């Protein structure tokens, strides 16, 4: 202080912490830290963030039976934590000598949309936002022109005069464009004809949705919501186990039912019996009979060469 030059005082003042600068700095720091914490707050909402176990999980086709059992246990635990029910998750494999085919009788369909809602209930689809695997198109009589189709019709009663109805879902193509574009092989065609998705392998790029000409693939843009009392506990790994935000899903012919020998949910709820399902390799199955005896078939957008396993037919 008594330095005649007065230099050292100034230097010391600026270097050392005095009361005022300490207060200022700490106030700035505290505000800054609080603001940083607040700005990172949205990260707290990522409660569904991947677990180490899921992150380290191997590709579906490379899992040994023991590893698969552990994966199924993990999924059961996750579902129980999230929805409060203990599900039964299975990994059902395709049966030998089985190739599934769907046939839908356009003469019979009245467009009541019961199949849509039975599918949602069976396959644990998000209720809000809605994800629905089946879209029922209403088209004027005369031709099958999807450009003229409506899917949000709401009359007092169906069928309406002058219109017919065409439910569209995954066509389980023999030559599926969605499988070709998947950069990570998270979707593939199984030997029984079902194109499946490994929801743990999907990276959410949505190429498959862009490639699908049938609008069959649905993306979880937000976190799916299912009321706890509406969760179907009969689940399959490649089927109806609950999905996360950021993964693709679609109709899988109710893999958890059909690979156990049962009919799909949309078929069992149809009041008119327009929906037929079965093994095309069995000559005595309903679908074999239909493809043998009925005369008019439509494979939707046949000209694209996707060769759907979903046949629309008429009662002639």
């Amino acid at each position, binding site marked *: 202080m008594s330095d005649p030059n007065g230099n050292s005082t100034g230097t010391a003042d600026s270097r050392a912490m005095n009361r005022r600068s300490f207060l200022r700095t700490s106030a700035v720091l505290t505000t800054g830290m609080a603001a940083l914490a607040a*700005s990172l707050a949205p990260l707290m909402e990522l409660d569904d963030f991947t677990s180490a176990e899921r992150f380290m999980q191997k590709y579906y086709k490379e899992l040994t039976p023991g590893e698969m059992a552990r994966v199924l246990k993990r999924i059961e635990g996750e579902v129980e934590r999230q929805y409060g029910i203990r599900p039964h998750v299975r990994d059902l494999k395709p049966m030998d000598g089985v190739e599934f085919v769907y046939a839908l009788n356009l003469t019979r369909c009245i467009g009541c949309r019961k199949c849509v809602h039975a599918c949602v*209930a069976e396959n644990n689809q998000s209720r809000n936002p809605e994800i629905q695997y089946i879209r029922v198109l209403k088209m004027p009589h005369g031709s099958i022109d999807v450009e003229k189709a*409506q899917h949000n019709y709401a*009359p007092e009663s169906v069928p309406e005069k002058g219109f017919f109805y065409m439910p569209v879902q995954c066509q389980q193509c023999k030559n599926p464009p969605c499988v070709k574009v998947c950069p990570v092989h998270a979707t593939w065609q199984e030997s029984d004809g079902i194109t499946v998705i490994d929801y743990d392998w999907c990276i959410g790029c949505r190429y498959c949705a862009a490639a699908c000409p049938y609008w069959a693939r649905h993306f979880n843009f937000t976190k799916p919501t299912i009321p706890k009392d509406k969760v179907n506990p009969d689940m399959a790994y490649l089927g109806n186990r609950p999905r996360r935000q950021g993964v693709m899903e679609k109709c899988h012919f109710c893999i958890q039912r059909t690979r156990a020998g049962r009919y799909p949910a949309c078929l069992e709820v149809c009041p008119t019996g327009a929906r037929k399902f079965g093994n095309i390799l069995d000559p005595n199955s309903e679908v074999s009979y239909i493809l043998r*005896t009925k005369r008019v078939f439509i494979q939707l957008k046949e000209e694209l060469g996707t060769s759907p396993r979903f046949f629309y037919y008429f009662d002639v």
Partner: protein
Amino acid sequence: MKNSHGTNAALTGLSFLFSALAAAFLLNLWGRPVPPEPIPPADPVFTNTATARVSGAELIRTGGDASGLDCYACHDKSKPVQLHFDEHKKLVLPEEHQDLVMGHGRHNRNNNCFNCHDEANLELLQTRDGRELKLVESTPLCGSCHGPTYRDWEAGAHGRPSGYWNQKLGPVKREDCVSCHDPHSPAFPSRAPAPGPHPLHPAARAASGSEGGH
């Protein structure tokens, strides 16, 4: 001197930046997911797998109230039933049978109870080739006229099965004609459709309704 000012300025700048970020997140400036508008849950009637109607045969099988099928509670066995027709040769239903809708066949052609019912024994059905069938075995009676449909039904291509497509793993349940069709008025009745899809975007949700597109 310079250093200290620089640090202070950087810290102040950073805290302003973070404050702005925090404010932006709180005010939701770039769309943190807002809770979506509620969608009413689908009526359980739309996920119900019951058939379109409950037939008399089903009532008898399941032990329901089948008293309406007891013909001789009112009819007299010794007295043959007289049918009455109006001036247009249309069948006149007696008061007791007013609940029946006579709508089988177009142009009033199927206008006689005894095309299907047995006039000698009202609790039986008769086919045109003279077979007598019990009330619960009506399907071959329908098949005696509706041949192609009956053939489809036998092959499983007509009607709504339930249970197992693979009979090695479980049973399949096939329905009778009358489980879905009213024999007196067999055309499938129209019904209210389930609600359509709700668009993801609230504005589109409000605008949807009669508009088309896919």
